[in-house]
């Protein structure tokens, strides 16, 4: 620490002011920033990607020289066995996968908010029934159920996949939101608005739900993550519309034509890596949201490693980053002239 801190009798006043002046973006933990940027890149690719595709992803080039061509300038990610351009498939596939996951995320999150808030706010028999339903659907394994549901459907189109995934994706969020609503329900401002005679729907929509935005956001991110994972896995198993291009169907075709065994890594690796990076972005974003709500979990990245040596594991985790300095000041002679 070479720059002297401003002299102040109240050490905490200065950093707190700093904290408030910074925007939300500055306050986000590094992990969340990385996640948001990565996700933004994918969303951008999904929006403008299909406009930029150099070829029709389904076009099969009959020329034998274009079968299984490694990446080059004409085909950035090479070609498949039947001469299709992998890069074009990837761009279209990212859009379809992301689109499906976002729709599932919205539908399932709305369901979980409705169920969670209704259970906690209405209480009594409603709570018993809705909580029981939530817990039962949490414990019944989702993928086998998804597989047999889609197995029965003669047409495994997008709509069917969305309905089935959303229909099984709500219980996690509902459980968390119910717990949060239980906590908020007893607060004074809710009691006050009930006393002033506000209708129930208004209390729910304007008093309770706005106080759960961060939880709802986290549950949305989680649901999107689940939808990407499940839809890709189902497509890989062949339980999807195999004529459309999503990251899952790309992997299905690559695997069924033994891309890896014949050494065509450029056919198999890009879609898998895209799914992995999308997933990582969402996981990072979510752990960032977590840290925002619970500062204890915050990465020690902002504090120098040397400063951490002054802390024993059981010391309270510094919520503000001045804590190491405060430690030093308490533990005897100071080395620098940085504090009054």
């Amino acid at each position: 620490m070479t720059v002297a801190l401003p002299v102040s009798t109240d050490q905490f006043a200065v950093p707190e002011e700093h904290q408030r002046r910074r925007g939300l973006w500055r306050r986000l933990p590094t992990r969340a920033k990385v996640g948001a940027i990565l996700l933004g890149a994918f969303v951008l690719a999904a929006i403008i990607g299909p406009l930029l595709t150099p070829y029709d992803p389904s076009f099969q080039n009959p020329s034998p020289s274009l079968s299984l061509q490694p990446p080059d300038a004409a085909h950035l990610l090479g070609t498949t066995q039947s001469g299709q351009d992998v890069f074009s498939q990837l761009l279209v596939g990212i859009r379809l996968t992301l689109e499906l996951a976002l729709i599932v995320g919205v539908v399932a999150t709305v369901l979980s908010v409705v169920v969670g808030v209704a259970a906690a706010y209405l209480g009594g028999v409603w709570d018993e029934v809705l909580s029981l339903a939530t817990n039962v659907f949490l414990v019944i394994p989702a993928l086998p159920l998804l597989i047999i549901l889609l197995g029965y459907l003669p047409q495994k189109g997008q709509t069917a996949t969305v309905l089935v995934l959303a229909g099984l994706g709500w219980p996690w969020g509902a459980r968390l939101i119910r717990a949060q609503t239980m906590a908020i329900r007893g607060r004074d401002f809710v009691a006050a608005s009930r006393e002033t005679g506000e209708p129930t729907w208004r209390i729910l929509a304007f008093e309770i739900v706005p106080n759960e935005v961060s939880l709802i956001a986290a549950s949305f991110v989680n649901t999107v993550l689940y939808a990407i994972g499940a839809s890709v896995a189902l497509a890989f198993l062949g339980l999807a519309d195999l004529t459309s291009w999503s990251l899952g169907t790309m992997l299905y075709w690559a695997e069924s034509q033994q891309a890896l065994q014949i050494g065509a890594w450029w056919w198999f690796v890009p879609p898998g890596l895209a799914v992995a990076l999308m997933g990582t972005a969402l996981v990072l974003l979510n752990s960032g949201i977590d840290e925002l709500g619970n500062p204890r979990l915050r990465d020690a990245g902002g504090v120098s490693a040397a400063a951490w040596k002054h802390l024993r594991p059981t010391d309270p985790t510094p919520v503000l980053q001045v804590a190491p300095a405060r430690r030093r000041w308490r533990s005897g002679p100071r080395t620098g002239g940085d504090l009054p």
Partner: protein
Amino acid sequence: MPFIVRRLIFYIVAAWVALTINFFIPRAMPGNAVESIMSKFPNLQPSAYKALQALLGVGHPGSLWDQYWAYLVNVFHFNFGVDVTNYPAKVSTLIGQTIPWTIILVGSATVIAFLAGTALGIVAGWRHGGWVDRVLPGLMFFQAVPYFFLALILLELLAVRGHLLPLGQGYAGGLVPGWHWDFLGSAIYHSLLPAFTIVIASVAGWMLQMRNVMITTIGEDYMLAAQAKGLSTRRVMFTYAARNALLPQLQGFGLAVGFVVSGAIVMEIVFSYPGIGLLLLNAVTSNDFPLMQAIFLVITFAVLLANVIVDVIIVAIDPRARAREGAR
């Protein structure tokens, strides 16, 4: 009502819901399931045709209530009907042959991942910001990679190119399953790579959760009190912090068993492992509806049973669960 009784009632309700869903799926889905089976297997006996109609609710097999009752009676007798693909083998026989493979491999791999993840989480939470804590974002990547993708890459690198491990299957061809060393050794050798991929893919989740709960626990006043009493670091770390942090972890384990099973299904398909997941996919691709439905029930019951075991463990290590009346 004691905790464990309340939980048992819950699992019975959950089992009944699963049974009922399983009963209604073939009746609610569009298309005629029996016709699609008969078109794929034209040489089925007329008696099989009748049995399929009764099982899947096609035609006029009596009122819905009678069908439902007959279905429940059949399930309680483990009578899932005759399999159409491997006619005249019984569905229950097929499931009985495959389920030990899944339970042994997936069970041990999951327990290893849970223990390793929890241990790493204790260290990462205790030395918050230490090097164990810093590899966590890297492990998150492995968690986000689609499981089958990771498994296929590892299979390609270690088995196809590296020749270190077998390519798949449960045991070497030519061996007869039985309790002799040739077979057991081969089975263990063949399970190494599948088990390793399950552990790699799931360890980060356990680690992250344990770390977060550890960090929250470390901030509690009783931790400071324990240190102030002059207890050894090891005792504070394990008996005070880890034991308390373990409870949410165990509750999470119960809920995660369903996800683990899902991963196992995909694992078996990648490695052609002779377990219940591969059987399920084969049933789906060949429109073998009776087998599909029976597998769903068996998997669900296995998950519920795992949850019961977890609850028993929770009661054993948490005095509050024993004392508390009707905990949720």
